C-alpha cells in the first residue's frame, strides 16, 4: 500500500475569493484559515471541539473549523467573520451586537456571529428558544448570553 500523502493541494472559495494552496494533510481547517491565510478573526478556544470559537460556514453550514482538516474543505465555499461586513459596512446583526452590548472581550464573537447569521438566514424571526438552541455550541464566558440573545432577536425582528 502506498504511503499516505503528507501534503495536498486544495482549492477553496473563501469569502468570495478563490484560494489555492498546498497544505500539510493534517493541518486543521482553523489553522489553515488563521496561519496560512492570515484571517485571524476565527479563534481557537479549546482542544475538544466544544467551545465554537472557531465556527465558520462551510457550504453555508456552521461548522467547527478545529474539527475539520483543511483538506476536507477542498472544493468547498467557506465564509468567515471577515466576510460579513462588505466594505466595512456592518451587517444588521453586527450592529445589533454593538447596540445591545452583546460582546465584552470579543473572543467568542466571530463564532457567535457565524452561527447566528446562519440561523437568521434559515429562520428570519427566531424565538428566544430558537436562538438559544442555535447558539448552544458557542461558549461565552463574559456575557452570560443575555445580551447576545437579545441582539440576535433584535436583528431578526429587523429592529
Amino acid at each position: 500500500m502506498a504511503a499516505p500523502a503528507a501534503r495536498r493541494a486544495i482549492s477553496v472559495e473563501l469569502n468570495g475569493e478563490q484560494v489555492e494552496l498546498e497544505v500539510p494533510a493534517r493541518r486543521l481547517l482553523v489553522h489553515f484559515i488563521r496561519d496560512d491565510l492570515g484571517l485571524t478573526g476565527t479563534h481557537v478556544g479549546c482542544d475538544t471541539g466544544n467551545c465554537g470559537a472557531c465556527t465558520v460556514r462551510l457550504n453555508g453550514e456552521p461548522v467547527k473549523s478545529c474539527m475539520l482538516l483543511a483538506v476536507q474543505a477542498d472544493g468547498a465555499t467557506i465564509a468567515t467573520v471577515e466576510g460579513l461586513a462588505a466594505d466595512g459596512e456592518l451587517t444588521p446583526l453586527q450592529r445589533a451586537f454593538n447596540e445591545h452590548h452583546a460582546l465584552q472581550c470579543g473572543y467568542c464573537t466571530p463564532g457567535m456571529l457565524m452561527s447566528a447569521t446562519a440561523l437568521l438566514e434559515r429562520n428570519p424571526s427566531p424565538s428566544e428558544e430558537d436562538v438559544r438552541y442555535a447558539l448552544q455550541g458557542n461558549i461565552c464566558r463574559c456575557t452570560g448570553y443575555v445580551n447576545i440573545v437579545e441582539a440576535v432577536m433584535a436583528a431578526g425582528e429587523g429592529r
Partner: protein
Amino acid sequence: MTVVEETTTLKKGFVGQSIPRKEDKRLVQGLGTFFDDVRRHGMGYVHFVRSPYAHAKIVSIDVSKALELDGVYGTITGDEVAIQTDPFFEMSVEPGGNIKDYALAVGRVRHMGEPVAAVCAATRELARDAADLIEVEYDPLAVLVDAEDSLRDEVVLHDDAGSNVVWSGVFDWGDVDTALAEADHVVKIERLHFHRFSSTPLECAGALVEYDKGTGEWTLHCNHQMPGVGAIWMAPALRVGIDKLRFVTQDIGGGFGNKICLHPQYVVLCLMARKLGRPVQWTEWRTDQHTANAHGNERTFLDVEVGVMADGTMTGFKVRALDDCGAFPRYEPLGCIIWAQVTPGMYGWRNIRVDFTQVCTNKSPVSPNRGYSRMQHLWLTERIVDIVAAELGFDPVELRKKNYVKVEQMPYETPNGCVYDSGDYAAALDIALDLVDYGSIDERRKDAEARGKLLGFGIGSTLDSGTNNFGQSTLLNPELQFSGNNEAASVKLDIFGEVVVTLGTVPQGQGHETTAAQVVADIIGCSPEQVNVRRGHDTWFNSHAGFSGTYASQFAFTGLGAVKGAAELLRAEMVQLAAAVLQAPEEAIELADGMARVKDGPEEAALPFMALGAIVNANNAFLPPDFNPTLNHRYVCRPYFGMVDTEKKTGQLTLTYATQIHAAVVEVDPETGEVEIVDYAAVDDCGVRINPQIVEGQVHGATAHAIGAALSEHFVYDEEGTLLTSNFYDYHVPHAMDMPPLKTGAMESPSPVAPLGAKGMGEGGGGGIHCLCAAIQDALSSAGKPLVTTSCNPPHRVWAMLQDPEATRRVEVMSK
C-alpha cells in the same frame, strides 16, 4: 429587564450613559488583535512537555531524538533553567517562603501537567511531534490531593520548606469566646468546603516573545493581565532590570484573574528566544489551562461555631480555615489575607476569629480567580446565615435584614478596621425579592409539588471589594515592601486636535476604551468619538505604575481616577493656552464641543482644539518664555489608605465595596437531583455607574460564572492526582440553554472615597453560588433537611443528599 432605584443626582454628561462601545467595531469584524494573531518572520512555535504524574522525581530527560527532527529549532529543560535563572520571589514567610519555584520543574514534578521541558519548532504540528520524542523518566512519589492529609506533613512537597504549610496565622477581633459563652444559641457546623473551579477564559494564555540581542531587551506580545507584578517576578529571575521587559497587550479574550500567574511560562519563552535567536510563540492548550494554569481558591472551613441571640442577632463566629493552594503558592499567599477585606460579610457581628492555614498539595497551582478569596469567605458567611436560619427556625430574609449592616451605619468600620464606604443592603434585597416575586413563593412551592418537584428559594448577598491596599501583604509577611496602590494614564492633545489616551490597565473585555473616553470627553468638552484610547497596555507607553493591570475590581477607581487626573491637567493647560491666545481671563474660557471659547463671547473668540494642539506642537514661537504648555499629561492615581497594623491584623485593606444581592427560585427533580433555575434576579450597587450597560453586562457574566460553579464546574482529582475535568467535555460551562431567565436590578450608592463616586465592580463576589446553595437547601428542606455544605451541587450530589440527608447534617445546636 432592569429596575433602577435611587440613582445619583450628580450631573451627567457622557458619564452615566450607556453609550455603545468603541471596541466593538473591530471585534465584530474579527479585526481584533489577540496575541496569537501576531506573527513574526522566522518565529518558532513552542510546545511544553508536561508531567503525567502528580508527584514524581525526574530521573532523566533526553531531548536528543527531538533535536534530530527536521524543523526543530531547539529545546530547554529544568536543568538549564536552574542555571540561567534564580527562583521566583516568594511572598510568604517561612516555611512557604523557602520554596524554590522555577520556570520549569527542577528535579521533581509536583502536579499533573507541570511543564518539564519545552521544544520550539517551525510549525505548531512539528512542535507537538518533537515534544512526543522527548523522553522523560519519572520515579513516582506518594501523592497528596487532600489539604487535611497535607497538613500532617507525612509527605512533604517542598524539601526547602520542610513542611507543606505555606503560611498560618490567627485573626482574632472582638471577643468571640465571651460572645459564644453569652449567646442564647451556639450553632456548630463541622465542615464546609468551597471547591476548585475557575473562570476558564475562552482565550487561553500565551505570548510571542522577541529578544533583542543588541539591547538585551525582551518584548512580550501577550495577555498577562497584571504586567506590573509579572515584571516584578520575572526580572529578578532572569537577572535583569525591569526595564528589559516590554509587555505589549492588545485585545485579550477574558482574564478573570486567570492570566496573572503566567510568569513561569513566560520566563521559559524569554530564555528560548534568547537561546535560539528567533521570536518564539506559545499558545496554551485548553487542557493545559485546566491542568496547569490557575485554579481558584479551594478552601475548607472546619469547626465553625456561631453565637446567636434569641431575637436572631448573630454575635460572632469562629472557624478554622484550611486553604489548598496546589503545588506552588505564587500569588496565592495573598489569599490568606485578602478575605479579611470582608471579614464580617454583610453583617454587623463584632466578634470573629479565623484560624487560617494554607497548604500545598499535588494539584494545579491556585491563583486569583473572579471573586478571589473574598468570595470563599462570603460564601462561608452566607452558609452560616442559612444554616443558622434552618436550624433555629428563623426566616432567612428576616435574619439577614436583622443582621445586615444598616444604611445609617455607613461608612461602617468592620471589626478589623476596613471601612464599607456605602450601600443599602436591605433596600437592594427588597429589589431582588420584588424581581422574583417573593410573595408568591409558597404558592409556587405547592404548584411545583403537584408536578413532583421540590421548589426552593435562596438569597446570596455578597460584596465586591475593590481597590486593594497592597499593604495588606505585610499581614502575610512583615518584610514585604509593598503598600498602597496606583494606576497611571496619559492624555494628550495632538497636532490636529486628536485627543489620545493611554492606560496602564489591561482590559480583557471591560470596555476601558469606552469608559475612559466618556470621562475624558466630559472633562475637556468633546465627544467620546473624538477621544482615541489606545488599545491595551504597552510598557513603552510609559503610562503604567507598579501595580498596573486589570484585577481586583478597581478600574473605575484607580484606572478612571488616573484618566480623570490626566484629563484635568490637560484641561487646565488648554484653558490657560486659550486664555493667552484669546486674550481673556481663564475664568471666562469654556471648553465644549471640541472648541475653546470665551463664554458669551463673539464667534471669532473661539479656537478649535486643533488650533491649540498646532500652536504647542508646531507653531509656538510667539508664546512667552515662561509659559511652556505641553498638552501631554501623565497622572498617577494613588488612593489613600490608613496604615495597616500587623500585630492586630487590622487596617484599611481596600477602599470600595460594591454590593450584589442575588435571589433564585429553583425546582429540584427528586428522582435525578437535577436543579432547574426557574427564576433569578441579581441586584448590583457599585455606586456611580460610568456606563450602566457595561456594568450590567458584567453582572450577567459574573452570574453565569457563579451558576456554572454552583451546578457543574468542578476541577476534580482522583487519588493519583489526575485531573478528571481537564477539558470542556468533562468540565461543563454554561451555554446559552443553561442560563435561566435572568433579571437585573441596580442601585447607585455613590462612594464617598472614589474619584468619580464609582466603585470598582466586575468580580461580583460569587453571589450566584451563595444563592443557589441556599435555594437547593431550601428545596430539600422538606426531604429530611439535608444541609448544603459544599459549593458545587451537581445532580449526583443533590441526589445523594436526598438519599441520605443525615450524612450532611454535621451540625450541632446548643441552646440555653
